[in-house]
């Protein structure tokens, strides 16, 4: 068997490979087609792309530091020098917004990792083992779900001490329930498959089954859900920042910048307006993308 594969040429290998993967490739092609024909998803993707580009190339986009103060240049209105104006410390709002993109990306990244990890572990454990374990874990999940999200996050950050790290921890501790439910459903589905029974019969341990069979199946719905939730993560972080319970100065977190500027709203509208627009813009991007993904995954469209 191995020999035959070895003997065939590179081209054939690729061909064979493509042949085997044909359904998957077809599926991807189809997805690509749907994505292309969903203008909203495309706009969303473009927005997210711009957002990531800004985050990556922040230092190239602006010559001002996001934190250094120039008390001589405080509260300047938007001009060619400072296209978004300056704040009460003479910092360039544009560069704060641009560097803020990095903060937001970081928040999304960390929150996603922590919350997915907790969620998956709890969810799969509950779904796979079922019974009392399931009952207990799900009741715990319910307890976390019994709080309105922002309020729980608020209490957590306030108690942990408001700063960026704790904000991320708090949001993760609020957000994991979504993935737990998904993971549980997925685990229950996989568990009831006949082949799992077969694998168990040949002596596979639970941990092994979870790691090699249940986990991979749970990943893709979780990833989809994650994309849908990224907008919410930003909004929650910004809400905490606005209440002074999130990232602390001089961290250029967008919500915190809006909050910084709110006392200047009447006379210096630009301080709050631009970072607020940045939040709306990026969340819009995630929502459009999420909507698109929902549409693309809609089995009725996939027929």
């Amino acid at each position, binding site marked *: 068997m191995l020999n035959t594969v070895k003997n065939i040429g590179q081209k054939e290998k690729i061909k064979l490979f493509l042949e085997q993967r044909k359904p998957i490739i077809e599926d991807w092609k189809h997805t690509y087609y749907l994505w292309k024909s969903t203008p909203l998803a495309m706009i969303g993707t473009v927005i997210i792309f711009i957002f990531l580009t800004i985050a990556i190339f922040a230092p190239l986009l602006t010559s001002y530091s996001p934190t*250094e*103060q120039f*008390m001589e240049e*405080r*509260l300047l209105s938007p001009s060619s020098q400072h296209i978004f104006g300056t704040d*009460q*410390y003479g910092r360039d709002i544009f560069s704060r917004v641009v560097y803020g993109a990095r903060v937001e990306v970081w928040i999304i990244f960390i929150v996603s990792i922590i919350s997915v990890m907790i969620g998956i572990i709890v969810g799969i454990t509950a779904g796979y083992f079922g019974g009392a374990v399931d009952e207990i874990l799900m009741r715990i999940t319910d307890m976390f779900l019994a709080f309105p999200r922002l309020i729980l996050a608020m209490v957590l950050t*306030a108690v942990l*001490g*408001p*700063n960026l790290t704790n904000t991320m921890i708090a949001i993760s501790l609020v957000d994991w329930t979504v993935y737990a439910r998904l993971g549980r459903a997925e685990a229950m589905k996989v568990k009831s498959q006949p082949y799992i029974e077969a694998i168990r019969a040949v002596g596979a341990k639970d941990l092994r089954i979870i790691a090699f069979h249940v986990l991979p199946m749970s990943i893709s719905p979780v990833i989809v859900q994650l994309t849908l939730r990224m907008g919410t993560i930003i909004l929650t972080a910004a809400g905490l920042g606005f209440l*002074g319970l999130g990232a*602390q*100065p*001089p961290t250029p977190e967008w919500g915190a910048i809006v909050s*910084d500027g*709110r*006392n*200047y*709203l*009447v*006379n*210096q509208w630009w301080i709050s307006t631009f970072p607020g627009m940045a939040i709306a813009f990026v969340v819009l991007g995630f929502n459009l993308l999420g909507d698109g993904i929902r549409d693309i995954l809609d089995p009725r469209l996939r027929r």
Partner: protein
Amino acid sequence: MLKKMYLWTILIVLFLSLTCLTNATTPKDALVIGANTEIFITNDPGVSFEVLPNAMVQNIYAKLVSVVVKDKQFITVPGLAESWEVAPDGKTWTFHLRKGLVFADGDPLKADAVVYSFQRVLKLQKSPCWLFSDVLGLTEESIAAPDDYTVKIVTNGAPSNVVLTMVGNTLSGVLNPRVVKEHEVDGDMGQAWLMDHSAGAGPYNLEEWDRKIKVVLKANENYWRGAPKIKTVILQDIPEPTDQLLLLKKGDIDVAWDLTAEQANSLKGGPDVSIVTTPGQSDEYVGMNAGWGPFKDVRVRQAVKYAIDYNAIIDKVMTGFAINNQQFLPVGYFGYVENNPYYQDIEKAKTLMAEAGYADGFDVEIVTNTTERRKTEAVVVQENLAKIGIRATINLMQASQMYAKFREQGLQIIVAGWGVDYPDADALSNPFANYRVKQLAWRCVWYDDYAADLTEAASKEINEDRRFQMYQDLTNYWHIYGPFAMMYQPIQFWGVRNEVKNYDKAAEGYSVHYDLTEVYK
């Protein structure tokens, strides 16, 4: 289609009729003050200890004497007591009440009411109690009424200025014992009831406190100095400064209490609104932990004092609403003489750092709380310190957490403020220079016995000249060795509609004496 049109018309009419209601201006005999009433806890003079509620309590309860501002100095003038004298031992004080005084409800006000009120403060043991018990050394037995018009108290021999300012302080407001006893629940001496009711003899009665909405005061027609001109005072809860600004500009409120400096400046020169200012009764400081690493070295502390850009903070952060005052005594206090040795001098600071062996600087954590102003100050200080190589990070804490850590001597640098408890030098020299009272000096681990001894001596010195000189010596010594860089003394400011007259007189004494009887429209 017609049906739709009809519906739209109704909607538009409704909307317009709603909007008509929004243009209400305040009545002529009413004063509406917009403020963040978050810190309002009670209107009980024996419990209240914050500036804003005190400002209301001062207008509800009359006191034996009043501490007012004259020629920018605090002086004591007669109140319910028309005269007083102190025995030669400097401890026994006798106050003579006016005849025919009545409470707002018409009950006669006699000496027993004063005694009851003072003893009540001591019994309640609430926030302001220590001013009586610790500073004046009063006990329940040391307060007495030999007859209906005489009140006698025996102190620990505190200087006369201290005693009189205390008797003129909010906690000395006189309550009607009959009413209070009527509303006593479980021996609380009327605490619960007095939160939102009043039983005083001041110019106003507390009509209503609708929590987080408004506090309403109504004129007391029986006030001994005559009923005030403004009949209704409403303290409207408006937590956001921006909202206060908007409402003030529109005339929905007459006075805005919590404007930002920036907003106040934007109002200057406007047609309808002026800015009223008065020196604030507080200090803004940068405190260094003299027991921590580099700050053990007095030269490092001096370097920090030379690194701070005082002018930038005053001009830019406070946009001029601050006085360059580098001592703990606020302007206008006994013992105050302008004395500001520090200014930003990076070279000098660097030299001092090098002499102390920290030419390359060090890492330090600045802690402050989450209010807008402190945040800004901390950020400026952080920048300033960076110039002499001190790499500072800012850690914003909620006030509660910050003070908890501070009380455990657990901070490296703190940016904070100290509000004056009573208008005497003593109220500041102790916290800032005497570590034995376990306040600021102790929290900054500045265990300096010379300063502590001098502070204690000054607080017992009855001779005014000698006392004055002691404060000069203390200030000079403290400037060199102390762990504090004093950023400024804030200037308190209000946005006030031009229809409101004499508000500057009313607010001149700010936290010590806030007198709405002066105001008219």
